[in-house]
């Protein structure tokens, strides 16, 4: 008999918690789940966790959304006009090879230690993932669909709006999900370096006091938030691209 997938997922999560618990009582120097849970309740109770989550989410969302908003038009222009692509692509390829984290020192020197450098590196991470995906999407639009629109009387701007944009939307949405992942990855590191609030900052200050439960709370919060946002985007993706033949 086939076991439902969700049941297996649940079993896996519970087993993982069990292993964690077992490791903590077997003498390994990690806090047990109840200890972490109690710390989480404390941190929620005094508003620390809420404040940190808001601070981190604000940075991720600002950087991520700015990145997407900039990447989509740039990607479209690059895909549609070969000269634009030839002009911009070397820079994108170059910056893609530099991990956004490596730009943090430069960003701090140039932009100070306030929000701007953090949002900037997150922006860069999401922009780079998303721009490549959009470009691929536009380049991959089926020529026959464009011809079909042309012979039905569509002009360039309507072909763009009614064929190129919908046809490349699956690529853009995948790019957004990758961009979101790199946004989170970059955020924590950005906060580790200079922040007054945020999940990454909280974990780093906990490290100074050897406060393992708080570090665990931070890790789990980041994981859960990242997962939730990814699921949200996945739902949007399914909704918007359910017309695709292959799935």
């Amino acid at each position, binding site marked *: 008999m086939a076991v439902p997938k969700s049941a297996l997922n649940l079993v896996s999560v519970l087993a993982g918690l069990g292993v964690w618990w077992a490791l903590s009582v077997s003498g390994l120097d990690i806090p047990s789940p109840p200890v972490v849970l109690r710390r989480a309740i404390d941190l929620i109770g005094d508003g620390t966790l809420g404040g940190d989550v808001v601070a981190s989410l604000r940075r991720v969302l600002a950087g991520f959304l700015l990145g997407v908003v900039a990447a989509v038009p740039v990607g479209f222009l690059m895909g549609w006009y070969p000269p634009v692509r030839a002009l911009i692509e070397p820079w994108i390829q170059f910056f893609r090879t530099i991990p956004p984290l490596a730009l943090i020192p430069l960003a701090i020197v140039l932009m100070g230690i306030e929000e701007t450098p953090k949002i900037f590196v997150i922006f860069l991470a999401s922009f780079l993932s998303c721009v490549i995906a959009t470009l691929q999407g536009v380049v991959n639009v*089926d020529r*026959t*669909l464009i*011809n*079909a*629109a*042309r*012979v*039905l*009387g*569509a*002009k360039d701007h*309507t072909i763009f709006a*009614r*064929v190129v944009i*919908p*046809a490349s*939307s699956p690529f853009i949405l995948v790019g957004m999900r990758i961009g979101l992942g790199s946004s989170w990855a970059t955020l924590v590191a950005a906060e580790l370096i200079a922040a007054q609030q945020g999940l990454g900052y909280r974990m780093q200050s906990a490290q100074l006091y050897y406060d393992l439960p708080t570090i665990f709370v931070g890790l789990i919060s980041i994981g859960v938030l990242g997962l939730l946002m990814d699921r949200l985007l996945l739902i949007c993706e399914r909704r918007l691209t*359910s*017309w*695709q*033949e292959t799935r």
Partner: protein
Amino acid sequence: MISLRHVRKVFPLKNEEFVALGDVSLEIRDNEFVTVVGPSGCGKTTLMNILAGLETPTSGQALVDGAPVRGPGPDRGVIFQQYALFPWLTVRKNVEFGLREKGVPSAERKRIADHFIELVGLERFADALPKTLSGGMKQRVAIARAYAVNPSILLMDEPFGAVDALTRVRLQEQLLDTWDQEKRTVLFITHDVDEAVFLANRVIVMAARPGRIAEIVDVALPYPRTEEVRLSPEFAALRNRVWSAVHHQESLA
């Protein structure tokens, strides 16, 4: 009325030229159903693309109703082998696509779309997405979509090339049925000799290297083309004639 006058189309290759069409002249009367059959590389798709306005001839002229073809236009509907339906639009929205470009108001669009969806027998699938349709049904949507903008000419590039043999026969009969109700000038490209003879008033046999017209065969069989026509000795005779024209070109050249 379609006229091709000394149309030549040359594609530059790496260090030589490929003559897709070498000096093709042809006239097609209004409401005539003409099929073009020939081996691959004989330039039949190029011929269609020139008439559709998707390609320009290297020399010579393509005229529709006396005016040279300049780019695609809604007076010439095109049906592609790969269906080319917009997968994110429902059947009805696909059929309405060209009407929207023309600025037809929404209620009128729906009425026209429904009429042509019914004409190809897909009213039950009007709100379905293309991914839920079979190949034959997709091609019928494409035919309805081309008809909806009311073109005087339909250009069809191996439209039934990707469907199975049984579906193909049904689609041929249905296409003739549609054409009978809504007469248009049709230029239908195929590599299937039976199909070419079954559908056409006139079969144009093309040859390759360079792409040219090898022979024109008049098909004086009555419409509607029923199963009896398809199985008649007259049909067989014409089919054999076209068959040899297509398959024994090397010996002619």
